[in-house]
């Protein structure tokens, strides 16, 4: 059994259906979660989730194992989300103005949530989704790529074609605001 995601994708490109199943099992949950939190509705998230995997399937022959598979997968996902925004006349994330300037919430503090707050939040279904929807799109995108896709700062910067400092800034603001929102909800 291949452990490397890229090797699995290459194996699938050579006709190994089990390799794709292994990849799908590994990434279906974070990808679906990314779609749910990025889209305005579960139906759209399902549709776009399937579209991502269709593109992965179509790219099986042309795939080059020269970058992390998860970064490649979420780049596809992000592009599909942006296309979906454009198709609905919404402003895509890439065209949003700098969120650090537009954000009304300054990154005053970034202390972790208390255990009591965490216990309450974990019992309330949908609170995280609601809090995320209140973030600016660019910040939400950065924090989703960080905490769901598991990408590091450099990978996020490369994926979003943005500078490292900008990504750091977005993450700082996003984390601070999200904690503040969650504290309010708890």
């Amino acid at each position, binding site marked *: 059994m291949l452990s490397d995601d890229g090797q699995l994708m290459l194996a699938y490109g050579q006709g190994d259906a089990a390799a794709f199943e292994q990849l*799908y099992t590994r990434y279906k*949950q974070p990808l679906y979660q990314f779609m749910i939190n990025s889209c305005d509705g579960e139906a759209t998230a399902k549709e776009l989730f399937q579209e991502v*995997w269709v593109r992965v399937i179509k790219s099986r*022959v042309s795939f080059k194992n020269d970058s992390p598979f998860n970064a490649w997968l979420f780049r596809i996902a992000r592009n599909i989300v942006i296309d979906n925004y454009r198709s609905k006349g919404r402003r895509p994330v890439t065209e949003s103005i700098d969120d650090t300037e537009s954000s009304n919430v300054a990154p005053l503090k970034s202390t972790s949530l208390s255990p009591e707050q965490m216990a309450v939040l974990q019992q309330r279904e949908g609170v995280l989704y609601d809090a995320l929807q209140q973030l600016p799109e660019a910040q939400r995108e950065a924090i989703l790529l960080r905490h769901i896709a598991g990408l590091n*700062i450099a990978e996020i910067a490369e994926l979003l074609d943005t500078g*490292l400092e900008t990504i750091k800034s977005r993450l*700082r603001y996003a984390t601070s605001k*999200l904690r503040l929102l969650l504290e309010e909800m708890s």
Partner: protein
Amino acid sequence: MNSTDTSDKSFKAPDLDTLFSDQKISIPDALDKDILSLSKQALEEPSHKGFWPNHSPWMATAAVVMLAVLITPLLLRAPENQLESNVPDTQSSASAQKRSVFESGSNIGLNEGPTVKKAIQGNTVIEESVHPKLIQQSATVKQVEDTAKISSDSLSFSESEHLSADRVENYPASDTIDIAADSGDINTEISVKAIAPAKPKMLSDSLPQPAYRSSAEQWLSEIKTLVQADKIQVAKDEYNLFLLAYPDHEHTPQFP
């Protein structure tokens, strides 16, 4: 320590990680099945289906033309090269085939195959056209064989189309061969005895031929004389040579 590592460490948020991991999101089973089904269906399609539709039919046509241009000259040259390279092999294999046939002394029919037939026809032609010479040669060689005991290992025959009658003469057999040849309406059975392997033509040309071989009656008379002189083996050899010259002669001398 680079900035990326530093930033990665400084952006750890275990509380948020916990909330994200606890987010209750389940993928519908139908969606799983659809995607996995699509992934398997894609593998059942031709591997280059995604490529050719974008470029066909021009790419396909160009590929066929290129292949034709590249391969046709090779194919046209191939038979010539193959023929040239096979000539020695054909000769050697034919030689081996002929040798085995001649050594076994088996009867060869004209209907045994086109190549054999061709070779035998060549012999038949020789038999008909240079018949006295061949007999003379055989007799001479027989005499030489008795004294010199010439080896028959140098036997070589060719069934190539380039094989000429002269060449056949120069590739003698070592043992007896019975050839059943159907040449037109003439049925002939020839018993060729021991054509010497080396320079038989020169030897036969240099040795005088007995006068009694000029006619069938005198030859048979000479054979009868040899029998009466109790030279039975010599008489049998003479009779074998006689049969080469007159294969359809009905007279058979009585040997004790």
